[in-house]
C-alpha cells in the first residue's frame, strides 16, 4: 500500500506542477501590481529602479479619488440594506408560500446575475429616463440593488430550505408570538447567510463597473473614476490603488468565508 502510494505521488508530479503553474498565472499579475506600486520610476522594468512611497503619497493627495471613494461608500451603505429589504422577504415568500410559478419568479430574480451587467444597466437607464429621474448616485444604488438582489435571495433561500420548520412550530406552541419566534428562532439561523451575502454585495458593489456605466451622473463611484483615469493614460498611482484594494479584498474574503462556512454547518 505504501509503495503504491509512493508510486502514485511520483506519477502525480505533473499534476502538482500544473496546479502550481496555474496558481502562479493567477498571482504573478497581482504581485506585479504591488511591486510596481513601490516603483520610483515610471518604467516597468525589473529590478525596480528605486523603491519609493511616492505613488501612495500621490494617492493620499488625490481629492477627486477620495471623493469617488466616498461616493462608493455612500452607494454601498444604501445598496446593502436595499438588497436585504427586498431579498430577505422575497426568499421567505418563495420558501413559505405556495405561490403560483414560484420557481419561475426565483429564476427571474436570478436573471441579473447571468445577463451582462451592461444590459441590466441600460434597461434601468431607459426606465429611469422615461420616469424623468435624473442620473445620480441614487440611480446607481437602484442599479446595484437590482444587480445584487440574486446574491441575497439565493443565499437566504438556500439556508431557509435547510431550516427545520418544526423549531418555529415548537416556539409558537410554547407561547411565543410570531415576532418573537422570528427574532429568537428563525433569525439566528439565517443570520450568517445574511451577513455573508451582505459582505458579498458590499465587495461586488465596490468593484462594479458594468451596471454603473450607464447609471452614473456627475458623481463618480471609485471604479468609474479609475476607469476614467485608465482612459486618460496609465499612471503608477493606479498600481497603488490596486495594491490597497487587493489588501482590503483579501481581508473581506477571510471574514466572508468564515461567515458562509458556518452558514453551511
Amino acid at each position: 500500500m505504501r509503495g503504491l502510494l509512493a508510486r502514485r505521488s511520483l506519477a502525480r508530479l505533473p499534476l502538482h506542477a500544473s496546479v502550481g503553474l496555474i496558481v502562479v498565472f493567477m498571482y504573478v499579475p497581482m504581485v506585479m501590481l504591488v511591486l510596481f506600486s513601490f516603483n520610483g520610476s515610471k518604467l516597468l522594468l525589473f529590478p525596480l529602479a528605486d523603491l519609493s512611497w511616492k505613488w501612495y503619497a500621490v494617492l493620499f493627495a488625490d481629492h477627486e479619488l477620495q471623493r469617488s471613494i466616498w461616493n462608493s461608500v455612500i452607494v454601498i451603505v444604501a445598496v446593502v440594506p436595499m438588497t436585504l429589504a427586498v431579498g430577505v422577504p422575497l426568499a421567505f415568500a418563495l420558501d413559505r408560500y405556495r405561490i403560483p410559478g414560484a420557481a419561475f419568479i426565483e429564476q427571474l430574480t436570478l436573471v441579473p446575475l447571468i445577463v451582462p451587467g451592461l444590459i441590466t444597466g441600460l434597461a434601468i437607464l431607459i426606465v429611469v429616463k422615461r420616469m424623468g429621474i435624473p442620473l445620480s448616485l441614487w440611480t446607481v444604488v437602484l442599479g446595484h440593488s437590482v444587480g445584487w438582489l440574486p446574491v441575497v435571495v439565493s443565499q437566504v433561500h438556500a439556508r431557509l430550505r435547510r431550516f427545520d420548520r418544526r423549531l418555529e412550530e415548537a416556539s409558537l406552541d410554547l407561547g411565543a408570538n410570531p415576532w418573537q419566534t422570528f427574532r429568537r428562532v428563525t433569525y439566528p439561523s439565517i443570520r450568517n447567510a445574511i451577513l455573508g451575502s451582505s459582505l458579498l454585495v458590499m465587495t461586488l458593489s465596490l468593484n462594479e463597473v458594468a451596471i454603473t456605466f450607464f447609471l452614473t451622473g456627475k458623481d463618480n463611484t471609485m471604479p468609474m473614476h479609475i476607469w476614467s483615469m485608465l482612459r486618460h493614460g496609465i499612471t503608477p498611482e493606479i498600481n497603488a490603488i490596486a495594491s490597497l484594494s487587493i489588501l482590503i479584498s483579501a481581508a473581506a474574503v477571510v471574514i466572508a468565508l468564515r461567515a458562509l462556512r458556518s452558514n453551511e454547518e
Partner: protein
Amino acid sequence: MTRRADTSVVLRRWRGPVLVFGPPFLFVLAFLVYPYLTVFENSFYRVADYVVVRDFNFDNFERAIGGELYRRVLYVSARIGVIVTLITLPLAYLLAYYAAFVARRWRHLLYFLVVTPLWTSFLLRVYVWKLILGRTGLVNNVLTSTGAVDEPLSFLIYNQFSVCLTLVYILLPFFFLPIYTSLEKIDPAYLEASADLGAPPLRTLIRVIVPLSMPGVITGAIFTFCLSFGDFVAPALVGGPGGLMVSNVIISQFGAAFDWPFGSALAVLVLIIVLAVIALGSLAEKKSAGAVA
C-alpha cells in the same frame, strides 16, 4: 352577507403577508422585469432627429443581422466566449480536482487563493494585462533589455489574443467555484467502491468523477461564456480595434451614436444568445443526470 364575511376573513388572513411580501414583489416587477421588457420594446422603435419615435418596425434587427459589420461583431464576441470557455475549463477543472481530492491539508489555502481574486477589482485585473503586454509593458521591456528582440513585439496586445488571455485570467475563479462545489459533494465511498472493483484511477476519474461533476461544469461553462461574451472592459482596455466586442458597440449606440433603439436591438440579440446558452445548458444537465442515473 356570508360572502362579505368571507372576503373580510380572507383580507384579514392575507393582510400581513401582503404588507410584508408585496413591496419586494413590486420592486422586482418595477425595476427588474419592467426594465428588461422595456429594452425589448425599445428595440422596435426608431430614432429621428435625436428623439426616439414610437413607430413599431423591425429595421433595427434587419440592420443588426443583415449587415455584415454587426453580424461579424456578434460572431467574434460569441467566438471569444467559446474560446475562453474552452481554455478555462481544463484549468478550472484541474484546480478544482486538486483542491477536492489531492490538496488535503492545503485545501482551504488553495480555495482561498483561487477565490480571492474574485473579490478584487475587475477593472484593475484587466488593467494589469495592459502593463504586462503593452508596448512599453513588462514582457516587451524584458525582451528588449535582454536583447532577445530589437523592436517591442506588437502582437501581444490590442487583438483578440490579449482579450482571450485577459478573460481566461479573470473568469478562472468563476469556473472553478461550481466545479469545486460539485466535486466536494461526491461521496468518497463511490471512489473507494470503484477502486475496490478494480478500476484504475484514470477510469474512476472518467467513469465516476467526471459524470458526477457535470452539473458544476455546465454551470461554470454558462457563467464563463455569458460573462466573456458580454464583457466590455477587456475589449476596451486590451482589445484595440480588432478585439472589439458587441458590448462596446452597444455602448457607442447609447453614447456617441445616440441610437438607443438600435442599441436595444443589439442588447436583445445578446439576451437571446445568453438565454439560448442557458437553455442548452439545462438541457445538457438533464441529459447528464439521466446518464448517471
